[in-house]
């Protein structure tokens, strides 16, 4: 038997993001549940979030984000042979979202699968796509994080409806072609703990999302900065060299607490949650897409990604901005 061979290193070629048009402000929520703009800002750091329209599907949002990333990469649809959609809110168990999205983007017959690692999903997808390219299983991969959490939120539950939102973000992954350039996607540090499965859950198809806020906060602010530091160590990048830190946008207070413990004084810390809400697997690529568009991060910058959430699951890696 023979094995395929791939490139030594992989990189991200482009990002793309999509948010639904409908903006829901804190005041909008305060009109229907017992909460206030000040309370929401102080507890979770969110000012407004986006919610999909009634006819806007998960595949619609994933296709929009994926299409933008593909266009920005300069590749054509025929160059893509692997499509991964990280989501915990698929419209149905089958068919998967990835094959539908691939067909809509004109990507013919790629390997296509959905991946559920909840809020860590994009980092898992990025790692598996990178490994597939390195192994020669794929030439170029499209990785999308997409969520329609609004359909799993109890809009009368003030502890959750203030947090979760909809959106999609994407990245195109391919080989490093410049012999002078180092790898653009570092080794992943990932893990899980099913013993904490009940801390964030949608228990069955008739249930809404629930989470134990204090338990999740304690875990996130104590267990994750070592994971983030380990990802830096494996990539050979000192935290002091990071241009940005883009953790999952779970809650601004969690983001700030992890950033403080990480010790990366030069790094710009993503705060996309302020106007995007918590979009689970979409939050990291959405933030990367926006930060790139706004010039907050530039080509060649080292950026640390850290996904974490239900499962419990987590994954971190250092990337280089395309």
């Amino acid at each position: 038997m023979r094995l395929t061979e791939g490139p030594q290193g992989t990189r991200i070629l482009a990002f793309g993001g999509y948010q639904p048009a409908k903006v829901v402000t804190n005041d909008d929520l305060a009109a229907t549940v017992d909460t206030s703009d000040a309370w929401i800002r102080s507890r979770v750091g969110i000012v407004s979030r986006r919610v999909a329209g009634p006819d806007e599907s998960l595949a619609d949002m994933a296709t929009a984000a994926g299409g933008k990333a593909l266009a920005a990469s300069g590749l054509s649809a025929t160059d893509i042979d692997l499509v991964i959609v990280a989501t915990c809110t698929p419209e149905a168990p089958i068919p998967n979202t990835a094959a539908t999205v691939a067909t809509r983007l004109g990507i013919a017959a790629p390997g296509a699968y959905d991946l559920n690692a909840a809020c860590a999903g994009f980092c898992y997808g990025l790692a598996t796509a990178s490994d597939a390219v390195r192994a020669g299983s794929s030439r170029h991969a499209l990785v999308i994080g997409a969520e329609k959490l609004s359909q799993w939120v109890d809009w009368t539950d003030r502890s959750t409806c203030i947090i979760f939102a909809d959106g999609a973000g994407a990245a195109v992954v391919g080989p490093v072609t410049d012999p002078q350039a180092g790898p653009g996607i570092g080794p992943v540090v990932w893990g899980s703990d099913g013993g904490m499965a009940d801390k964030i859950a949608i228990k069955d198809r008739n249930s809404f999302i629930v989470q134990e806020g204090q338990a999740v906060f304690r875990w996130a602010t104590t267990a994750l900065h070592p994971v983030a530091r380990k990802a830096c160590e494996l990539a050979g990048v000192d935290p002091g060299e990071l241009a940005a830190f883009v953790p999952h946008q779970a809650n601004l207070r969690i983001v700030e607490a992890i950033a403080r413990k990480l010790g990366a004084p030069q790094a710009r810390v993503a705060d996309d949650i302020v106007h995007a809400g918590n979009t689970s697997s979409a939050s990291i690529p959405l933030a990367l897409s926006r930060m790139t568009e706004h010039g907050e991060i530039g080509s060649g910058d080292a950026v640390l990604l850290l996904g974490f959430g239900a499962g419990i699951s987590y994954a971190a890696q250092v990337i280089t901005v395309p």
Partner: protein
Amino acid sequence: MAMTQEEILTGLGEIIDEVAGVPADQVTPDKSFVDDLDIDSLSMVEIAVAAQDRFGVEIPDDQLKNLKTVQDVIDYVRGAGVSA
């Protein structure tokens, strides 16, 4: 040797200053976290985590709701029989 009331109070003052931005001299035993110091449930988790690092006493989430004043935390830490 068990930590004294004063030692724990000093430590808590520094922790609360760092976590919640409340000046340490305002952290006196009779103060209520919620009503006097404006410290919410998530900051209480951060205080509990920092207190564990500093005093070696674990304060689980289900105990936090019982710790309403600074003195309650001091008593909890001392009651856990910590040695300095």
